C-alpha cells in the first residue's frame, strides 16, 4: 500500500466514524495560529512581529545555555527544550548532571510527543512551553481531582469493572501520572494524542478522565482476567496502539454524554 492510499484509507475511516479527517493532523498547528495557547495573538498583522519576538527569545535562551556549557551539539533536542524551560522559569540546576525531578520527566514525555507533531523547533518549543504552563497553572487544582472523577465515571459506566479494580487493590495504583500528568504522552500514538490534546488545550482537562475510562472499558475482558494490581497497571501502561483512535472517539462521545456539548467542541 502506498503512503497515499493509506492516507485515503485513513481519511475515509475518519469520515465513517464521524471525524474531520486528515485535517486532524494539522489541528495542533491550527491551535498555534489560533491563539488558544496564547502563543500568537489572533491578529494577522501583528503575527510577524510577535513571531519575531518569540524567535529571538528562543535564540537568546538557547545561546545562553551554550555559553554556560549546559547544552552542546550532542544534547538531545528534548533535553534542550527542558533546559530552556528551566532557565526561563528560574529553575535551572547548578549542573546538567544533577538528577532530574519527576516534573522534568513529565516535561520530557510531553516534549517528545510534541516533537513528533511539530517540525519547526521554535514552534515546537513554544507549544511545549505553553502546554506545560497551562497544565501547571490553569489545571494545577483540577489535575489532582481527576483520579476521583475517574472512579465516579467508571462506576457509572461499569460498576463491576470498578469492583474488580478495588478487589485487586489496583484502583490506587493505576497509571494516573501517565494519564493525567503526562496527558497520555507516550501512551497514545501521535494522531490520537492530538485529538485529546486539542480538547485539553481548548479548556477541558476532563477529557483525560473519559479517555482513561474508555481504555478500561475497551480492555475490560483483559483487565477482568488479570488479578493483581501490578499486572493490571503494567498492562494499562502498554496498551495496544491500534485501538487508540477508537478509544479516543468513544471517549469524546462519553465526554459529550456526561458533560453536554461544550461550545468549543463543535
Amino acid at each position, binding site marked *: 500500500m502506498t503512503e497515499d492510499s493509506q492516507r485515503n484509507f485513513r481519511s475515509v475511516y475518519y469520515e465513517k466514524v464521524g471525524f474531520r479527517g486528515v485535517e486532524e493532523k494539522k489541528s495542533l498547528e491550527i491551535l498555534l495560529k489560533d*491563539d488558544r495557547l496564547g502563543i*500568537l*495573538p*489572533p*491578529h494577522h*498583522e*501583528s503575527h510577524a*512581529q*510577535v513571531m519575531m*519576538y*518569540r524567535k*529571538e*527569545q528562543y535564540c*537568546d*535562551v538557547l545561546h*545562553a545555555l551554550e*555559553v*554556560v556549557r549546559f547544552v552542546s551539539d550532542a544534547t538531545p533536542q528534548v533535553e534542550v527544550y527542558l533546559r530552556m524551560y528551566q*532557565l*526561563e522559569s*528560574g529553575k*535551572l540546576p*547548578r549542573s546538567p548532571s544533577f538528577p532530574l525531578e519527576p516534573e522534568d520527566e513529565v516535561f520530557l514525555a510531553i516534549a517528545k510527543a510534541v516533537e513528533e507533531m511539530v517540525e519547526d523547533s521554535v514552534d515546537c518549543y513554544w507549544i511545549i512551553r505553553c502546554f506545560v504552563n497551562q497544565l501547571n497553572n490553569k489545571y494545577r487544582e483540577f489535575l489532582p481531582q481527576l483520579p476521583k472523577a475517574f472512579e465516579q465515571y467508571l462506576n457509572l459506566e461499569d460498576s463491576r469493572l470498578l469492583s474488580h479494580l478495588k478487589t485487586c487493590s489496583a484502583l490506587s495504583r493505576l497509571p494516573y501520572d501517565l494519564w493525567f500528568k503526562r496527558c497520555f504522552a507516550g501512551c497514545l500514538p501521535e494522531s490520537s494524542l492530538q485529538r485529546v490534546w486539542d480538547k485539553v488545550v481548548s479548556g477541558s482537562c476532563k477529557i483525560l478522565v473519559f479517555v482513561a475510562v474508555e481504555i478500561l472499558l475497551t480492555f475490560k475482558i483483559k483487565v477482568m482476567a488479570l488479578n493483581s494490581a501490578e499486572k493490571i497497571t503494567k498492562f494499562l501502561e502498554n496498551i495496544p496502539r491500534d485501538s487508540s483512535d477508537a478509544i479516543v472517539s468513544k471517549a469524546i462521545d462519553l465526554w459529550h454524554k456526561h458533560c453536554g456539548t461544550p461550545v468549543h467542541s463543535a
Partner: protein
Amino acid sequence: YLEDVKVQARGQLQAAESRYEAQKRITQVFELEILDLYGRLEKDGLLKKLEEEKAEAAE
C-alpha cells in the same frame, strides 16, 4: 475596531515583555556562572600556592 487594536497591542506587548523577562533570567544565570568560575579559579590558585609552599618546605 478599537477593541481589535487594543487586543493586538496587548499581544505584542506581552511578547516583548516575555522576551525581556527571558533576558533577565539569562543575566541571573550568567551572574551565578561568573561567581562560580571565579570561585574555582581562586580555589585552584590557593591550591597551587599551597603545593608550592609544601615543595619549598621539603627542600
